[in-house]
């Protein structure tokens, strides 16, 4: 087992003594068989939990609330498998901020709590102070674990809120259009506005525990 992984597991054991007993035998056996002074020759891969990655593609069932296909960002979300729910507390209890890879209007952003996002457009109808709930995440990660959705992570597993901070504007751009051998020029002025968000919180909702930030 890699040293970072072992350290994180020992921290978890110290942090949360009341964990489900099903997990405990697996963790303690691997921890006690090796000591901290050993440098293992093989590095175990970090467990990458995927929700329903092993399910065979089912024939499409007509549903009134289906999301149509789109040519940009993926559109489907798969519900979390029991394996995901069992391993999620490991991710949630790790110290430090968790990161999210989100999709907003088809564009992906990697955020941690406290990040500022400058969207490439002005969001209509919002004022500074509005709270947006971001719900399309492709990956959630902590220091040693990553939860990857296929293609999106189940919305009920996390909460991510962003506050609208305001609107920024680019410097004024002048486009001067002029043809050869003609004196008339046409000037087009552009000053686009961009909405700025601040990610206020990222919470993992592990089942059976309070969400860890």
């Amino acid at each position: 087992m890699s040293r970072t992984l072992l350290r994180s597991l020992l921290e978890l054991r110290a942090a949360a003594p009341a964990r489900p007993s099903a997990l405990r035998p697996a963790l303690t056996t691997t921890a006690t068989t090796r000591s901290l002074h050993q440098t293992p020759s093989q590095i175990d891969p970090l467990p990458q939990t995927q929700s329903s990655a092993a399910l065979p593609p089912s024939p499409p069932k007509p549903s009134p609330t289906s999301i149509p296909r789109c040519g940009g960002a993926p559109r489907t979300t798969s519900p979390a498998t029991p394996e995901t729910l069992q391993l999620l507390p490991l991710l949630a209890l790790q110290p430090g901020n968790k990161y999210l890879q989100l999709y907003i209007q088809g564009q992906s952003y990697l955020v941690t709590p406290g990040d500022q996002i400058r969207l490439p457009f002005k969001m209509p109808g919002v004022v500074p102070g509005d709270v947006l709930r971001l719900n399309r995440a492709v990956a959630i990660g902590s220091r040693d674990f990553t939860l990857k959705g296929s293609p999106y992570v189940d919305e009920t597993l996390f909460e991510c809120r962003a506050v609208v901070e305001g609107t920024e504007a680019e410097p004024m751009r002048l486009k001067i259009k002029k043809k050869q051998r003609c004196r008339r020029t046409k000037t087009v002025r552009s000053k686009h506005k961009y909405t700025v968000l601040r990610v206020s919180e990222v919470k993992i909702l592990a089942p059976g525990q309070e969400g860890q930030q």
Partner: protein
Amino acid sequence: MSYFRITLHRSAIGLPARTRGVLAALGLHKRSQTVYHPVEAQFAGMIMKVKELVKVEEVERKLDKWEVKAERRPDSGFYLEKMAPRMEDEGQKVGSRVLARLRGEDESQVVEGVRREGGGEVRV
């Protein structure tokens, strides 16, 4: 009745006027545009004239223009959870439809299942 779902895949720039005329008759004016026509001999003949430029699929239901646009639109990725108090006379008036879409209550964004991604269930 079933329909042809016709998508212009190759551009008509540089092609003869007759071919452009066929595309105009089908209603295809720009690349990646999608139109629906009923499965009849006259439309099949038009498709055969421009078969190298288009992609055709046979479907049961004809989608409206807004439904075709909704297919291409990505998920917004957010919804408005809490609104801050608005000032009385806002500089920019915002329509109720915009607010409904922000809150995720806009039903026109969701279209009955015509095409789905392979694998996994679909959740709203």
